[in-house]
């Protein structure tokens, strides 16, 4: 009898999903570092690249390493994550807004 434990109550990956996740992460990391290290790209293009690479890489990690998906088994994990993101948007967005505004008015 094989006794196993799940991380999120959802499916646990296999060698294939971990390999795919790892290769995606390496590519996305290189895609983020390359335009900054090599240069020769417009500022707007660099910002767009590094932020989209970061967001996609976070999603890749959540899906391939932490096995979050839309299945009912990981529903509560996803709900908790969404709630946390809402709190973070309020925290970080609110702090930056207030501090930027204070800085603007004190000039």
């Amino acid at each position, binding site marked *: 009898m094989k006794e196993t434990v799940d991380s999120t109550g959802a499916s646990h990956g296999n*060698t294939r999903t971990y390999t795919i996740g790892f290769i995606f992460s390496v590519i996305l990391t290189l895609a983020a570092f390359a335009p900054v290290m090599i240069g020769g790209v417009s500022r707007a293009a660099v910002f767009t690249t590094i932020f989209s690479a970061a967001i996609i890489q976070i999603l890749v990690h959540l899906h391939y390493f932490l096995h979050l998906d839309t299945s009912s088994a990981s529903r509560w994990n996803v709900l*908790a994550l969404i709630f946390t993101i809402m709190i973070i948007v309020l925290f970080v967005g609110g702090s930056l807004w207030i501090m930027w505004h204070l800085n603007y008015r004190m000039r």
Partner: protein
Amino acid sequence: MTPEAIDTTAAPGTNLAHAEHDATARQATEAMGFWLYLMSDLVIFASIFATFIVLSRNFAGGPTGRDLFDLSFVLLETMLLLCSSGTCGLAILAMHDGERQRLLAWLTVTFLFGAGFVAMEVHEFHALIQEGNGPQRSGFLTGFFTLVGTHGLHVASGLLWMAVAMGQIITKGLTIPVQSRLMRFSMFWHFLDIVWVGVFTIVYLLGVLQ
């Protein structure tokens, strides 16, 4: 998590399938609880990120990110952490297959990658402080040391956790509680890699661009 999990009155000890179901439900609850801890940790990191971003241009006449950061060094650090995340996954697969030796081997590799990451970070901090660019130099450096240091402390705690886990695998074997703890460790380890994606993007890449 499920109503059945609470129902312990039904013929205790006579129904093995039921007992097994209880154990599975218990582990799912423990994983969920640990996930909630990770979410609260994420809020802590987010607050420190916000602090860093607010302070990130307050150089006080001191060095900027462009002067201090060596991106090829950071890229190597990133790759070490990413590799350790991958090998951690392979360790968990070995655990599911019930192969103790393979599990211990992958955990050792994961530990070495993680230790390499921490060593590089300690080296970076040491060099900065030696050059007089410690956390007291400017608001920017205070934010930098707080954010990167908090992440580094988490990784160092992960190393300690891994060492204890390997000790438990050797002395206790692959019991259900040991496996359950290893699952939570892997969640913690992958989580730290996700936070690092934010750190290298916002601290290092944006720091060099500014």
